C-alpha cells in the first residue's frame, strides 16, 4: 500500500512525532491496522474500511491512524475510482498528520489529482504547490523524485520549458535507473525539441534506449527517434505504399476524417454513417457518437472519440445532440493538453475554447486546427492563405504563407493534422495539389503532389503515424493510402 521503502524510517519518526500515547493504545492501534490490512488482502473491503475508519475515529493520535487514512484514500482512488471521496481523506492526512511521511504521499496524490483536473494555469498552480510542499518538507522522501517529475510536467504544460527541463533533470539525477527517471528523461528529450535542440532531444532518447532497453520508455523513445529522423533528418521523397492496411480496397464507407489516439492508433470518421471508428486489429470498432457533418475528429485519453460537427459543434455523447455550437459554422477543432477543445469557424473573429476559462483565442478566419506539443495549435486560414503557429494563449508565434518553399502555391487546406512531436501535415488544393509536411519551425520538410505520388481520388482526411508515414483517407474509393 505504501511507496515507502525500507531505507525510510516511518515507525521511529511516527513515534517521535506523535503526542505521547500509552503502549497499550499503540498496541491496540497496530492491531486494528493490521486487522484491516488482512481483511483488505482478502478482498473483504467493507470489513477493512470499517476497521480502518474505526482506528481513525478511536485512535486519531496513533501513528497507525495516518497509515489507515492513506489506505482509505488509496482505496477510493484505485478501487472505487472516486477521487472526490479520496480528496478529504488526503486533505486530512496533509493537515492533521503533517509530521508523518504519509502526509508526503498524500501531497503527491492530491497534486496528481489536481493536475489531472486542471484546465487552466491557475488550477495547475495548486497542484504544483502540493508537489513543492512534498519536496520542501520531505526532502528524503522516496516520492520526491516523482514529485519532481510532476512539477516538470506542470511546468511544461504552462510553457515554462527551461524550468521544466530543470525539473526533469533533477528527477533524473536522483536515481537514473528508476522508472520515474526514465519518464523524466523522455519528457526532458521532448522539452529539448520544443526548445529547438533536436540533436539534444535525439541523443537523450537514444541514451534512454541504450541504457534501458526493453522498457516501455525505450519503446516510446524508439518511435519518437524514428519519426523525427524520418521527417527531419532523412526527409526522403514521399512515395505511396498503396492501400493500407496492406492491399485493403473498398473496405470503408466514405472516410473523410482521420485522427490518432493516445497510443498512436488510427480513428476514422465515415460520412456514410456519420460515425467515428477505431481501427483495432484491422477491424473497425465504433468509437464515439454519430453526428452529422463531421468537421474534426478528436480523441481524448479515454479513447472514445469526440466529433466537431458542422451542425452541432462539439459532440461527445450519442444523445442529446442539442448543444448549441459555440460558433455558427464550425469547420475544425482540436483538443489541447489541458483537455480543452478549440473550435474554429472561418467566419468567426476568434477561436472558441470549450472548457478551462473559456477565453477565446483572438485569431480570425481559421478554417482548421491541429494541436502542437507546445500546448498551442497550428491554424490554417484560407482567407489569409497562411498557416499560423499559435501558443497556448493564442498568440501567433509563426506565420507561414500557403505555398512557401513549394514549387507552386496552394489555395486551400483540405485537411490538417499534427503529431505529438510537432510535425504538421496537410492535404492542400490549388496549383499545388497534394500533401505537405511542415516541421515545428514552419519549414516544409516533405511534400508531393498526388500526381507525382501516382494516386488519384478524393482525399479528405490525413493523419501522421508512428513510423514516419502519412495516412490519407480517400472518400471516393473508400480506402486509406499510406505514404512513406
Amino acid at each position, binding site marked *: 500500500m505504501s511507496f515507502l521503502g525500507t531505507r525510510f524510517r516511518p*515507525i521511529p519518526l511516527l513515534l517521535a512525532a506523535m503526542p505521547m500515547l500509552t503502549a497499550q493504545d499503540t498496541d491496540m492501534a497496530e492491531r486494528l491496522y493490521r486487522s484491516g490490512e488482512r481483511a483488505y488482502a482478502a478482498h473483504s473491503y467493507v470489513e477493512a474500511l470499517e476497521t480502518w475508519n474505526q482506528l481513525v475515529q478511536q485512535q486519531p493520535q496513533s501513528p497507525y491512524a495516518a497509515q489507515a487514512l492513506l489506505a482509505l484514500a488509496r482505496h477510493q482512488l484505485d478501487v472505487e475510482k472516486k477521487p472526490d471521496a479520496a480528496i478529504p481523506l488526503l486533505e486530512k492526512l496533509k493537515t492533521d498528520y503533517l509530521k508523518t511521511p504519509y502526509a508526503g504521499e498524500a501531497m503527491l496524490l492530491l497534486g496528481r489529482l489536481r493536475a489531472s483536473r486542471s484546465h487552466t494555469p491557475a488550477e495547475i498552480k495548486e497542484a504544483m504547490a502540493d508537489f513543492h510542499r512534498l519536496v520542501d518538507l520531505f526532502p528524503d522522501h522516496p516520492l520526491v523524485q516523482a514529485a519532481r517529475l510532476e512539477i516538470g510536467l506542470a511546468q511544461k504544460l504552462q510553457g515554462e520549458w527551461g524550468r521544466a527541463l530543470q525539473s526533469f*533533470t533533477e528527477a*533524473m539525477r536522483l536515481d537514473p535507473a*528508476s522508472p520515474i527517471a526514465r519518464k523524466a528523461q523522455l519528457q526532458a528529450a521532448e522539452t529539448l525539441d520544443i526548445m529547438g535542440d533536436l540533436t539534444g532531444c535525439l*541523443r*537523450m532518447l*537514444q541514451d534512454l534506449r541504450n541504457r534501458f532497453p526493453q522498457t516501455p520508455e525505450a519503446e516510446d523513445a524508439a518511435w519518437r527517434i524514428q519519426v523525427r529522423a524520418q521527417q527531419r533528418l532523412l526527409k526522403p521523397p514521399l512515395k505511396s505504399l498503396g492501400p493500407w492496411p496492406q492491399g485493403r480496397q473498398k473496405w470503408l464507407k466514405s472516410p473523410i476524417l482521420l485522427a490518432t489516439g493516445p497510443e498512436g492508433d488510427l480513428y476514422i470518421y465515415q460520412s456514410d454513417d456519420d460515425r467515428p471508428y477505431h481501427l483495432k486489429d484491422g477491424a473497425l470498432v465504433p468509437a464515439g457518437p454519430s453526428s452529422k457533418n463531421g468537421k474534426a475528429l478528436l480523441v481524448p485519453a479515454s479513447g472514445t472519440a469526440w466529433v466537431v460537427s458542422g451542425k452541432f459543434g462539439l459532440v461527445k455523447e450519442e444523445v442529446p445532440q442539442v448543444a448549441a455550437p459555440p460558433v455558427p459554422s464550425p469547420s475544425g477543432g482540436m483538443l489541447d493538453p489541458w483537455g480543452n477543445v478549440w473550435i474554429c469557424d472561418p467566419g468567426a473573429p476568434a477561436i472558441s475554447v470549450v472548457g478551462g476559462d473559456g477565453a477565446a483565442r483572438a485569431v480570425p478566419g481559421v478554417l482548421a486546427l491541429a494541436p502542437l506539443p507546445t500546448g498551442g495549435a497550428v491554424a490554417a486560414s484560407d482567407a489569409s492563405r497562411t498557416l499560423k503557429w499559435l501558443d497556448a494563449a493564442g498568440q501567433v508565434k509563426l506565420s507561414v504563407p500557403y505555398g512557401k518553399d513549394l514549387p507552386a502555391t496552394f489555395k486551400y487546406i483540405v485537411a490538417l493534422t499534427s503529431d505529438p512531436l510537432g510535425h504538421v501535415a496537410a492535404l492542400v488544393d490549388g496549383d499545388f495539389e497534394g500533401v505537405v509536411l511542415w516541421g515545428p519551425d514552419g519549414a516544409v520538410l516533405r511534400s508531393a503532389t498526388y500526381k507525382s505520388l501516382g494516386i488519384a481520388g478524393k482525399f479528405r482526411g490525413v493523419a501522421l503515424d508512428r513510423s514516419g508515414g502519412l495516412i490519407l483517407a480517400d472518400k471516393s474509393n473508400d480506402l486509406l493510402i499510406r505514404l512513406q
Partner: protein
Amino acid sequence: MMRRPLLPLVLLLALLPLRAQDPALRESLQAAKVLWGTQGDRDGAAARLEAILAALEPSAKTLDEGWTKTLCETYNWMAVLDDRTAGKKALAAKRLESLLDLDPDYEIDRTITNPRLQTAFDGLRTSKFCRIKLSLDPEGGTLTVDGKVKRSEPGFHYLLPGPHTVAYARAGFQPQDARFELAAKDTRPVDLKLARTSSVITIYASPVGAEVLVDGKTRGATRGQVPVDKSFLADRAGVKPDQLSEGFRITELTPGKHILEVRLPCYRTRRIEISEALTTPFADHELEPVKLEASRGTLTVQSAAPGGQLFLSGLDMGRVPVQDLQVCAQAYDLQVKYPTGSFTQHVEIQEGKHLTVVSRPKARITYAGFEGTDDFAGRDRILGLLSTLGNRLGEVAFLTAAKGESPKDCLARLRASRETELTLVARPVPGKPIHQIELVLATLTGEEERVTIKPLENDPLGALVARMDRAVTLVEPWAGITLLDLADGAYVLQADAAAQKAGIKPGRNLLEAGGKPVATVADFRKALAEAKGGQITVSQGENPVKLAVTQMPTELPINAQDLCYPLVLSDLRLRYLGAQGDEAALLRLGQALALMHFREYDKALEVLRDARMVSVQGVSQGTLDYYTGVCLLRMGNVYLSEAIQSFNQALKYPQATLFGPDGPLLAPLARQALQDLQP
C-alpha cells in the same frame, strides 16, 4: 714439560660449553685421536674425551644411534687411555661397563684395545648379557628391540636376561615380531622372515621437501639427503648430492596403473605414470631421480595512491609500485595495505607469464557491534550474520571490534585512530516484541545511512550487501560519435572533430565496428566495450576508419537506490589519493554529488572549489561550475551573487553536459537558473 703448555688448553676445553649432539663433539673426538695417535699427547686427548663425556653422558638414554656410537667410541678410547695411566687403571673397567650399558652390541676397536682389556670386555658382556642370533630376510628393514630401533644387522645381539620383543619391518612386506624370554647366558636363534605384500617404488627428488602424491592422494614429502652409495643418482639428475633427497618409498600400491605426482611450490609439478608392470609381480623398483624445474612468473603492482605495502599470501613484499617481481607461479591472496584503505585481490601467477595488478585503496568498514542487551527472536541469527558480513563483501575490507570492546568504545577508538573509513553499528528498534533492527553505516566524517531490517526475514542483509558490493563507474567508453537506432541501421547523428577528421560522415549509417557488422547501436556499444589498444576500426561502407576510444566522464547519481552512499563517498575519497588531472577532478565531482546526497552542500562546495578540469566537452569544467552554482543556491540567499557567477561561468562551456557524454547540454539549464535569479 709437556703438561704445562697444555694446561691452558685443557682449561679452555673445560670451560667451553659443549652441548650434547653438538657436531663439534665429533670433531673433538677426532682431534683427541690425533693428539694421542700422532703426537702422544695423552693429557690433551684425555681432556677432550672427558669433555665429550661430560656433554653426552647426561642424555645418554635419549641419544640417537649415531651419537650413541660416538659415546661408545669415547668410552672405548677413555678405557684404553685410563688403562695406560697409573692410578686410573681401575677406571678402565668402569668405562667398558658404561659402554656395555649403553650398547651391548657395540664392538670395541680391538686394534687399540689391548688383549687384557678385550678379555675383560668380553667377559663382562658374557657374564651380564644373553645372546640372540638374528636372521633377517630380506635385509634392509627396520629392526626394533623392545620398542627401540636397533641396527638392522643379522648376527649376534646382546640382551639382558628376561622377556623381549624383537620386531622387524620393511616396506612392501608384512611386519613380523618374535617374543621370547632369555635366561642368563642363553644363546637363542631368532629368525624373522617377512612375506611380500606389495611392490615398493623408491623415488629421489630434487629439491628436497617435494610432496609426493599417488592418484591425487598425498603420501608425504621427500626429506634427507641421498646416501653416499646412491650419490651417482645426483649426477644423473644433474644436481649436487646435497640437493637430492633420500629415497622416498611408495608402498601399498595396488596392482594396476597409477599416477605419481611430485610437486613443490614454485616448481613445475612432475607427473609420472606407473605402469602395471611396476606393481605386479611384487618387487622393489627405483625410479629415475626427479629434478623439478623452477616455475615462476612476474608480477607488477601499480598504484597511483602512495604508501602501499604489498603482501603476497601474508608475506611482506615491500612497497608498491613493484615492477616485474619474480614470484612463484601459484595462486596468492594479494593485499596492498595503505595508510588509509586496503586493497585485496586473489591472483594466480602463471609460469613464464606476467601479471599486472592495478591496486587502489578500498574502504575499510568496521563492525563496532550490537548495541543493547534486549533479547528477541532471531538475535543470535542476526549477530552471526553481522559478524560474518565480511565474507560476503568484495568491494570493502571488513574489520570487527576488538574482543570485549563495546560499540561505544570501538567507535571512540576508531574516531581517534582513523583505522577505518566506515563504521557499522546495529541496534534494535524499540518495540514489543522487537522485530526490527536498525543498522547505522557511517563515515568518520559523519555521513550516515540507516537501514531497517527484520532479523527473521530471509537474508536480511542481502540488500545491503548488494548495495555495498556495487562498484561505481564514473566513465564510459567513447569514440566521438553519437548513433541513432533507425529502422535501417545505426545512423551517425553526430561526430566530433576528431572523428570527422578521421573520415566519419554524419548523416550516414555505420556498417561495421571492430570487424563485426553493426545493425544497431547496441552492436556498436558492444564492439566499443570490447575494443583493445585504445582504438576501434569502423566503416561506413568505404575505407575503414580508426577512431580513438577514450573514457568519457559520467556523473554519480544523487539518490540511487542501489548505491550505499557512505561507502561510495569513502571509496571516492580513497580513489582520489594519487589521482591527477581530469581524473582527480572527476573524482571530486563524484564526491560533491555524494555529499549532495547527504545535503551537505557546504562540504560539496568545498570539494568542487578544489577541482579543475581541462576537458570542456561532456561532463567537464562547465559541469563543475554548474554544480558549484547549484550548491551555492542551496546554501541560501547569502550566496546568490556567487551562484550567478558560477552559472555564468558554466555558460562559457557550451559543449558541457550533465550525466554523461549523451546527457543534456547544461547551457539551457544554467540560463534558466540565471533567469530565475534575476531580481
